[in-house]
């Protein structure tokens, strides 16, 4: 079952959320990462995400499968944008359903942290001054 997806265009979170809910669910947690207008003290005009698609999809699926093993949750999903994004656009979404809130919150936090650390996606920021650059944070 596909739980992780790269999206080329804006996506609807209501339908993604609906797919995670059923009669067993007592708690649902989500995280949404948005394109903000600044980073590291610089004014950001927009950004582009590039992915190594084959490996990103494999790694994303592995993270979600791992989360289902580690946490007492019912289901989880993640969608990450690629391509050009404007300020205020949704860049990444994580949703987790569980019987209780503790596991839903914990798994949601773990998934977004793992996605940021492991999935081969790179951010290319354009700045208000006209220059641009890749973000390659050292672990």
């Amino acid at each position, binding site marked *: 079952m596909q739980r992780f997806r790269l999206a080329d265009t804006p996506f609807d979170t209501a339908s993604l959320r609906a797919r995670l809910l059923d009669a067993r669910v007592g708690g649902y947690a989500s995280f949404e990462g948005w394109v903000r207008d600044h980073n590291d003290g610089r004014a950001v005009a927009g950004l582009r995400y590039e992915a*190594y698609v084959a490996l990103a999809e494999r790694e994303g699926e592995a993270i979600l499968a791992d989360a289902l093993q580690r946490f007492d949750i019912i289901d989880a999903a993640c969608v990450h944008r690629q391509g050009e994004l404007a300020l205020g656009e949704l860049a990444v979404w994580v949703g987790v359903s569980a019987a209780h809130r503790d596991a839903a919150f914990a798994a949601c936090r773990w998934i977004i942290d793992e996605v940021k650390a492991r999935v081969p996606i790179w951010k290319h920021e354009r700045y208000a001054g006209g220059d641009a650059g890749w973000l*390659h944070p050292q*672990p």
Partner: protein
Amino acid sequence: MSAKIDVLYFAALRDAAGIASEQVDTEAADLAELYAEVQARLQLPFPQRQLRVAMDGEFARWDDALRAGSTVAFIPPVSGG
């Protein structure tokens, strides 16, 4: 014995290489030797220790042997999310 390998470059590595992919004919025994070769030839800005490496769409180890005909990607530090 030489092997033909497809190499993929992403993000700042692609910008530095000036190409997204290339086919190389290499005598490198493992992935670390392959990176040393292309790093020297293309003047890539990342030391090996800052990168991860993948072979045929799966993360690999630097001391994994090269498989002829495989696709190798050098993965600079990621910044999704």
